[in-house]
C-alpha cells in the first residue's frame, strides 16, 4: 500500500509506563467507516487519544501515518489542521468561553492554515447555526460556555456539531454513543451519515453494537489487550452483540 488515509502500524503505546497498545495495526481508506470495538480496558480510548496527540500517551514503537504524514512528532493542533478530528468521550467544559467564540477560533485557525481569509462573522454564524440545527441544538447553545452545564447527550451532540463545522478528513469518534438515549443516538448517527463522503473517513470507537444499527461500517475490528484480534465486515458487530467478547479472547 498505501493510499490509506490512516495507517497505524505495529503501534505500541504506554500510559504511566504501562503498556496499553501492544502492536496495533489498522488501515482506513478515504470513503470508509471503520468501527473499533472491544471490551473495557482493551485500549480503545488510548487509540483515539494517541491519534489526537493527547499528552501522557507515549508511543514507544510503531507508526501512525495520516495522509502521508507521520503523526508522531506533530502537536495536537497540527494534527487537527491536517484534518484529524477527535470527538471526545468526555468533552471538556470551559466556562467563560462561549461555544461560538471557541468554534470561530477553530474555524479561523483552519482558514489561516489553508491560506484563506477568515470567514465573515455573518457567514460563520450562519454556518454554526446550521450545524447546530442538524444536531438538534438550539442557537442558545452557541452562546453558552463551551459544554457548560450541557447534559451528557448535549455534549456529544456538540462534538458532532464541531465535526460537521470543521469538516475533517478523518473523524475519530471515541464512544460518542455512550450515555445517549435513543433520540440522541439517532441524531448523532444522522450527523455521522451526513458527514460521510468519498473524501473522508470515520473511525468509530465503541463498546456497543447499537450505533452500528444506524451507521453501517465498512469494516469492524475487535480490539483486545492492545491488539486487533479480529476484523470483518459489519456482520462481525452483530456476532459480538450476540456472543460478547469472550469467545475471541480464548
Amino acid at each position, binding site marked *: 500500500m498505501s493510499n490509506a488515509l490512516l495507517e497505524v502500524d505495529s503501534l505500541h503505546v504506554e500510559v504511566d509506563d504501562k503498556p496499553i497498545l501492544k502492536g496495533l495495526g489498522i488501515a482506513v481508506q478515504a470513503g470508509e467507516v471503520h468501527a473499533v470495538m472491544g471490551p473495557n480496558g482493551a485500549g480503545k480510548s488510548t487509540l483515539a487519544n494517541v491519534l489526537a496527540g493527547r499528552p501522557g500517551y507515549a508511543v514507544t514503537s510503531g507508526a501512525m501515518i495520516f495522509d502521508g504524514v507521520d503523526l508522531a512528532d506533530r502537536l495536537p493542533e497540527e494534527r487537527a489542521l491536517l484534518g484529524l478530528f477527535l470527538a471526545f468521550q468526555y468533552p471538556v467544559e470551559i466556562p467563560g468561553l462561549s461555544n461560538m467564540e*471557541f468554534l470561530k477560533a477553530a474555524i479561523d*485557525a483552519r482558514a489561516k492554515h489553508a491560506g484563506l481569509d477568515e470567514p465573515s462573522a455573518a457567514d460563520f454564524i450562519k454556518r454554526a447555526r446550521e450545524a447546530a440545527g442538524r444536531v438538534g441544538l438550539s442557537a442558545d447553545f452557541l452562546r453558552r460556555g463551551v459544554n457548560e452545564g450541557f447534559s451528557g447527550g448535549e455534549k456529544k451532540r456538540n462534538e458532532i456539531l464541531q465535526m460537521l463545522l470543521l469538516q475533517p478528513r478523518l473523524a475519530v469518534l471515541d464512544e460518542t454513543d455512550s450515555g445517549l438515549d435513543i433520540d440522541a443516538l439517532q441524531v448523532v448517527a444522522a450527523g455521522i451519515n451526513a458527514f460521510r463522503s468519498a473524501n473522508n473517513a470515520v473511525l468509530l470507537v465503541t463498546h456497543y453494537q447499537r450505533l452500528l444499527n444506524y451507521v453501517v461500517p465498512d469494516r469492524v475490528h475487535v480490539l483486545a489487550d492492545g491488539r486487533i484480534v479480529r476484523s470483518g465486515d459489519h456482520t462481525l458487530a452483530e456476532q459480538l452483540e450476540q456472543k460478547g467478547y469472550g469467545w475471541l479472547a480464548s
Partner: protein
Amino acid sequence: MAGSPAEVTLTQRLLKGGHSGYAPWLDRRPSRDVIERIGLPALRSEEWRHTNVRRWYEAVLANGSSRAEEAAAIAAPAAIEVVDFASPRAAELAAAGPASVIDLASQPLAAVNALLLRAGAVVRAPSGIRSTEPVRIGALNGAFQHVLVHVEAGASLTLIEEPSAFTHRVIEATVAEAGHFCHWRRQARSAERECSLVAVRLQAGANYALAQTSRGADLRRNDIRITLAGSGAEATVVGAWRLHGHDHLDNQVAISHAEAGGFSRQTYRGIAADSARAVLYGRIHIAAGANQTDAALSTKNLLASDAAQVFAKPELEIHASDVQCRHGATVGTLDDAAMHYMRSRGIGEEAARELLLAGFLREAIADAEGAELVGLGA
C-alpha cells in the same frame, strides 16, 4: 517610631503646607489631625504588609499634586447633577448631603488626598430619578481626586470610571433608602503608583453593585469599604484582574453588615503571570444584631508562571448568631484538559491559552450589572 525619609519628608510637607486653594469649603482639619496624631502608615504595617507604601510616598513627593487646571472630564446624562468641587454649588451639596463616610483614622491616605486635592466633583442622583445612561469619569486634572456620590432615596445611578491616571482617587458614596448604585471601575495597565479608596454607605433597602477590572501597575492599591448601614441593604462586588511583568495589585475589600437582613456577595478572579504579584484581602464583618445576614466571598486565582505570586485571604468576623456566611479561595493553574481540547480543534497553544485566560476572567464579570456598557457583556 521614626519613619522612612520619604514618610517624614511627606508628613512635614503636608503639615507645613497650606492646601492648594482648591475647594476651600472642604474641611481639611480632620485630615491634618489624622496625619499629625496618627501619622502615615509605616512600611510593612499590618495593613500594608504586601505593598511597599514608601514607594507611593516617593511618587507623591516626585509628582506633586498639580496638573493642568481644567474642568474635570465627566460625562453625565441630564437627569444627574454633576458639579466641580470648585463651584459654590458643590459646597451646598456637600453641606446638605450626608456626613462623610470615610474613616480617616483607618484610611490616612485619604487624608493625604484631602490636603493635596486638585480635582473633585459631586455626582448627585436626585430622589426618585432612575437613570439608565451612565455617568462616565475620564481623566481628571489633578493627581489627587475625590468624587462624592449622592444617590438619593429611590434613585438609581450608574457610574463608570474609565481608565485614567491618578496618584490617589477617592470615590465616596452614600446610597439612601431603596437607592441603587451600579459602579464600574476599569483600571488600565500603568507604569505609575496609584492608590484609591472606595467608601460606600448603604441605607435600608439600598443596593450597590461594584465591578472592577484591573490590569497591573508599578504599584496599585485599591481599598474598598462598604457599610450596609440600613436593614435589607445589598452589596455585590465583582473583581477581575490580569497582571504581567512586575505588576503589583493589592485589593483590600471590607464589607460591614451593621443591620439585619443584609446581603453581600464578593466574587474575584485573578491571573498573575511573569513575576507579578496580586493581593486580595476580603473581609466580611457582621455586627451584633445583624441577623438574617447572607454573605459570601469567593476568589479564584490562576498562576501563569512559577515566579508569580498571589496572596488571597478571606476573613470573617461574625458577632451575630443567625447568619449565613461562607467563603472559598483557590489558587491553581490552567486546566490541561481544556488546553488539549482546544488544541485538538486546531487552535494553537498560545491562542488557546489566551482564550482560556480571557474566559476565566469573563466568567466572573460577564454577568455583572452594566457589563454591556463597558463592552464586556456575554
